[in-house]
């Protein structure tokens, strides 16, 4: 049941057609895990907390650095050197005390990935490296947890929602990993994509709208345009196709 304070706090979204108090109640009961509290994770976490998510788990092993501050808006000057999850949890608690925040300051590995996401309703992929994104993609498919992927480079961003068993996965889209390098990024790019990821999570939880499944959304900030490309499930995908089922 929503409290009178909650009804007032979330009034502007409760009055959205098809959202209603029922949608707000679903958000209150929902559990979302955000992998990464950097450029993508910051806006995603801020808007999910503001929307009244029941539980947000944030996973990040990093500490705040000066070079993070052009885009990682949960972390401020005073936080440099501090654990990112602690910095993020503090701000999010101040934003909305009703949200239950869980923090894990650890590196996601093949061994611990499943344990970190099991039991959650949605995974937000706000990471900064591809090998770990693939680990989470696989864990999401194994446990049937919707997975909202976002990635950025410069003024370009991409997002896609993966519905395990129903839509193409990250491995259907990309099969390999290039040599890792420092990536350029304007802070507004992950802001756009992180907000799209938060929107997708809210839609999945409340059941409103159409998810970004089988559709890769590309944001081109330089030319200010969005492009949508269709991604079909790959039959022999290592993570979600027949090849994966034979291995498991």
């Amino acid at each position, binding site marked *: 049941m929503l409290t009178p304070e909650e009804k007032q706090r979330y009034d502007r979204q409760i009055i959205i057609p098809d959202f209603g108090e029922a949608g707000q109640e679903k958000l209150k009961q929902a559990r979302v895990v955000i992998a990464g509290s950097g450029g993508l994770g910051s806006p995603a976490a801020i808007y999910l907390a503001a929307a009244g998510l029941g539980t947000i788990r944030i996973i990040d092993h990093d500490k705040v650095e000066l070079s993070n501050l052009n885009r990682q808006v949960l972390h401020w000057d005073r936080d440099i050197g501090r654990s990112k999850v602690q910095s993020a949890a503090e701000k999010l608690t101040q934003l909305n005390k009703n949200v239950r925040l869980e923090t894990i300051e650890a590196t996601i590995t093949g061994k611990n990935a499943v344990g970190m996401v099991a039991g959650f309703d949605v995974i937000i992929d706000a990471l900064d490296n591809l090998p770990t994104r693939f680990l989470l993609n696989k864990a999401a498919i194994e446990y049937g947890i919707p997975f909202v992927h976002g990635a950025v480079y410069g003024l*370009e961003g*991409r997002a896609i929602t993966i519905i395990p068993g129903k839509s193409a996965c990250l491995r259907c889209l*990309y099969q390999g990993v290039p040599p890792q390098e420092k990536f350029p990024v304007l802070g507004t790019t992950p802001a756009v994509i992180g907000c799209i990821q938060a929107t997708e999570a809210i839609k999945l939880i409340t059941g409103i709208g159409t998810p970004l499944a089988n559709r890769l959304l*590309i944001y081109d900030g330089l030319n200010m345009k969005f492009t949508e490309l269709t991604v079909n499930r790959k039959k022999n995908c290592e993570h979600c196709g027949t090849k994966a089922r034979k291995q498991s």
Partner: protein
Amino acid sequence: MSIAINLPAYLRPYANDNESIAVKGKTIQECLNDLIKKYPGLKKMVFDQDGQLHTYVSIFAANEIVYADQLEKTVKDGDTIHILYIIGGG
């Protein structure tokens, strides 16, 4: 027959900063070959030493994903091919 190949920001420096390049070809592979002919610097970014697509490059034609073993698919006049280089920044 004219086909447009659209490049992501990451690959544009290898093609004189062009976003869209007009190429000729009846199949996706022929169009990619024409692109490489125009901008040889793109070759190592798109294909590996064996001439296969890099595993981290995705191709889309007529807005649908095309896998490495489907490059002989035919294209039609006015189609756009998108080359996506994987990005992972967050």
